[in-house]
Structure formats: structure tokens, C-alpha cells
């Protein structure tokens, strides 16, 4: 699963740490999500989307199966 969290973060000019604090998770977790090393739970995904005022589909995209 891909995501555009880094893009939306840049638009709002906030750091990973600030986003992590807002989401109630660690900075390492945000880092792992942005680098596609961890797929967040539905709750966290929806919370992130709501924070950016976007839909879940705008923030997260399923990768095409090869």
C-alpha cells in the first residue's frame, strides 16, 4: 500500500514528530508508514486522513497486484 502522507505533511509544513504527536503514535511509526514498512490500522488511517482533511483513498492507495 502506498501513501501520500509525506506530500500532505509538506503542504502543511509539519514534521513527522508533530504529526506523530497529533496521532498519538511515535515518530518511528509515522516514518515506517511513510516508507511503506508498516500498514496502519483502519482507525489510525482514518485519523490521519481526517487530520489532513482528505479522504482515506486520497491518502492511501492500494498497489496494483503484479
Amino acid at each position, binding site marked *: 500500500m502506498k501513501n501520500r502522507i509525506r506530500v500532505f505533511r509538506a503542504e502543511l509544513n509539519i514534521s513527522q514528530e508533530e504529526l506523530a504527536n497529533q496521532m*498519538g503514535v*511515535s515518530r518511528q511509526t509515522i516514518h515506517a508508514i511513510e516508507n511503506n514498512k508498516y500498514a496502519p*490500522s483502519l482507525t489510525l488511517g482514518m485519523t490521519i486522513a481526517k487530520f489532513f482533511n482528505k479522504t482515506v483513498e486520497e491518502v492511501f492507495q492500494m498497489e496494483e497486484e503484479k
Partner: protein
Amino acid sequence: MKSILFPHRYKKVSGFVFYLTTLVGAIIYLTDFEFDSNFVMKIPALIYDPIIGNKNGIWIENGILDELITVILIISGIIHSFSKERMEDEYISSIRLQALTWSIYVNYSLVLIATLTIFGIGYLHVMIIHLFSLIILFNIRFQLKLRTYYKSGTDEE
């Protein structure tokens, strides 16, 4: 869902006790230490089946050093492994679950190999080690994964 993890404040102390007890227990075990002649006291026994001696009654005289080490190692290992991190979130829960899965696979693979290759009295050592191997493997794996986790994302992006 309510957390079933121990509070973070127990992590350091339980870790210290766990690693120290593991080391002491390993040294004592490997040096053929006479367990039954240390910390001898009268204790109640649900089942007592000595190789020689009287089986009657529930109060027995027994050196409890090995029981003490076993209990301390298991309890401290469980508390250390299942104490919350300072910032406990879903990613750490995922890492903990993966470490537990890995340690079960490895532990029982080793038990299967040992079962098929070690026989006689030697298998007693396998059973004794098996008492502790799962919690030790899980602890080591989880702590290594946590180290990688904390090192990740050191460069702000």
C-alpha cells in the same frame, strides 16, 4: 480494547532481573551444580515422586534453588517482554506479535529436531531447556527488533 500489558515502569527492573537470572541459571546448570543441597526447606508438594525415598505426605524436604531460579526467570521474562514501551502504539504491538510468532516457530523447530535426534537421559536436558527457551528467544528477538525500530527514522524527512 483494554491493554493487557504491564506498565512501562516495570520494564527496566524486570529486564535486569531476567538477564541476570538467565546468566546465573545457565552458569549453574552448565557447571553441574548440586541444586538439591541448597536452600533446603520443608515445602508442600502436590506431586512428589522421588527416584528414591518416601512418597508419603504432602510436606517434603527439598532444595528450592532450582525452583526459585525457574520462577524468577519466567516471571521476570514475561513482565519484561510484555511491559509497555514508553510510547506504546500499534506498530510496536505489531513488532511484538511478529517477534512472538518467530520465537514460537524457532523454539518448536528446535524441539522437533531435538526430539528426533536426542534420546535417553539426554532428552531430559531438552525438556529443561524447553522450559525457558521460548521466553528467552522471544525476549531476544523482540529487543533486537525494538533496537532497529528506535534507530529507524533518525533522519527527519
